[in-house]
């Protein structure tokens, strides 16, 4: 990796905590590497961060493969809309290093607000 | 099903001009193979040898070697010709098969009381997968072993399922039997379910989806895999 892992983790943690504070209805935020390692997480929702990191990396990779197959360009976000909440994930780049940011929200969270907040993650990590 | 040998005979392998690395392997292989061999093998430096292992081209000059060894093997680099050669890097299966061949020459086989093998008339299946060395002499060994790994069969069924000559099946089954790899099975009444029952414990749920013979033959044809086995 070209970036110091500790520095990357620190910025990822700050971004996770900022998302938790900014998004009404957010229950947890997870930041993962594209190959499935947990970099940072925030929120009170109990979760197995290592396992979820692996899962979302698989999902992100599959979304990327499906987008390529359908020739619709690079995927921005993926949404899993479930009966008791949503999982919304976005691939971001920070100083050239790719990451997957995942926000878990309850049903009160507005999807548009969540997507907007995730869109701003790259900016917030850059200025942290 | 293993041959009844109550006393394990001591046999020896004598090495000449074998390098240190290969000798270390020989010692490790002898330890690992104890369960497969019918005799207790040891490495010796002089005297009686049942297997002479040559690492170089020099003539044999082993002190005290008066009798011809039962077998002699040459370690060579690169592809070798014939059954008296082992190629480097020394492979476990090939070495153990050479030891088993010596044992076959020295030890009597143990036929059943009727003079026929127990598997001649009954159903049987493999109790474990055979070594590469046991499979290699049989042209359709992998295919035959594969069928025997799934379910108990009779010799006739095996020949029919595998599309292999009966005599060849019998030779293979004999070899597996003498190696102690066969378990005789009571004929299991096939389960009348929609999905074929697995050859495991009765009542065990079959999770492999039902597949018709047509699918398999079409896939074989598409990929160019003969149904008589490729090994």
């Amino acid at each position, binding site marked *: 990796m070209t970036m110091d892992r500790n520095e990357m983790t620190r910025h990822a943690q700050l971004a996770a905590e900022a998302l938790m504070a900014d998004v009404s209805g957010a229950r947890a935020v997870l930041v993962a590497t594209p*190959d499935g390692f947990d970099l940072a997480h925030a929120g009170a929702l109990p979760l197995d961060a290592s396992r979820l990191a692996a899962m979302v990396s698989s999902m992100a990779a*599959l979304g990327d493969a499906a987008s390529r197959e359908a020739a619709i360009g690079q995927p921005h976000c993926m949404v899993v809309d479930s009966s008791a909440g949503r999982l919304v994930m976005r691939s971001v780049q920070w100083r050239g290093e790719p990451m997957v940011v995942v926000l878990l929200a309850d049903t009160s969270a507005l999807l548009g607000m969540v997507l907007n907040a995730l869109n701003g993650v790259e900016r917030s990590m850059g200025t942290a | 099903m293993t041959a009844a040998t109550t006393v394990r005979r001591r046999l020896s392998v004598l090495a000449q001009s074998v390098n240190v690395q290969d000798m270390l392997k020989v010692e490790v292989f002898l330890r690992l193979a104890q369960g497969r061999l019918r005799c207790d093998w040891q490495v010796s430096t002089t005297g009686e040898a049942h297997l002479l292992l040559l690492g170089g081209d020099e003539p044999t000059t082993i002190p005290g070697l008066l009798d011809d060894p039962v077998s002699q093997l040459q370690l060579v680099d690169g592809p070798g010709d014939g059954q008296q050669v082992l190629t480097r*890097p020394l492979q476990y*299966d090939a070495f153990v098969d050479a030891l088993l061949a010596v044992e076959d020459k020295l030890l009597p086989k143990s036929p059943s009381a009727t003079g026929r093998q127990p598997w001649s008339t009954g159903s049987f299946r493999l109790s474990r997968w055979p070594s590469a060395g046991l499979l290699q002499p049989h042209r359709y060994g992998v295919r035959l072993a594969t069928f025997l790994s799934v379910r108990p069969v009779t010799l006739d069924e095996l020949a029919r*399922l595998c599309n292999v000559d009966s005599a060849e099946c019998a030779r293979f089954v004999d070899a597996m039997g003498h190696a102690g790899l066969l378990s005789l099975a009571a004929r299991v009444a096939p389960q009348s379910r929609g999905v074929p029952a697995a050859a495991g414990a009765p009542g065990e749920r079959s999770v492999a989806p039902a597949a018709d013979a047509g699918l*398999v033959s079409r896939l074989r044809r598409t*990929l160019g895999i003969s149904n008589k086995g490729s090994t």
Partner: protein
Amino acid sequence: MKDPKIVFTGTPGAGKTTAIAALSDTPPVTTDVRNTDPSLAKSHTTVGLDFGQVDLGDGQVVRLFGTPGQLRFEFMWQILAADALALVILIDNSRPDPLSDLVDYLEAYQTLLPSMNAVIGVGRTLECPLPTLDEFSDIVGERGLVVPVLAVDARERDDVLMLLDVVLAQVEARVDLGVEATQE
């Protein structure tokens, strides 16, 4: 009838993607990303699945799936192996503890293996002759299973076809058992 699938699983670098590419009619779909695990000597690694297919020419295809190799993706192993026609487990004998690697897969698939058509292919046995194929068979046998164990090079198409030959023979053996059942 649902298109059948064959799943290739096994350790990272054992040749799963290569094996699928050797069989697939079309270039396989891959989900490789840059590897950040320093213990894995690869620049990229599969994190989703590999996908290929063999067209049987009558509207039916056989789908080929490759799983990620690392243990943290074990959930994908389960998802992909569900309803599979056959399972090919590829082991790299040059890794530090190949027998332990095999145990990971035997445990992950312990409910499926007793009745699953399966084969174990061990690669790099020429450069790394130990552990021996016998030792792999012993590990399998200790679990009351009889699964074919073969030395293979996933880069050689003939070796990959040999693995397919073995699992197809198992399918044939079970199909025949089912024919007997319907005739009883």
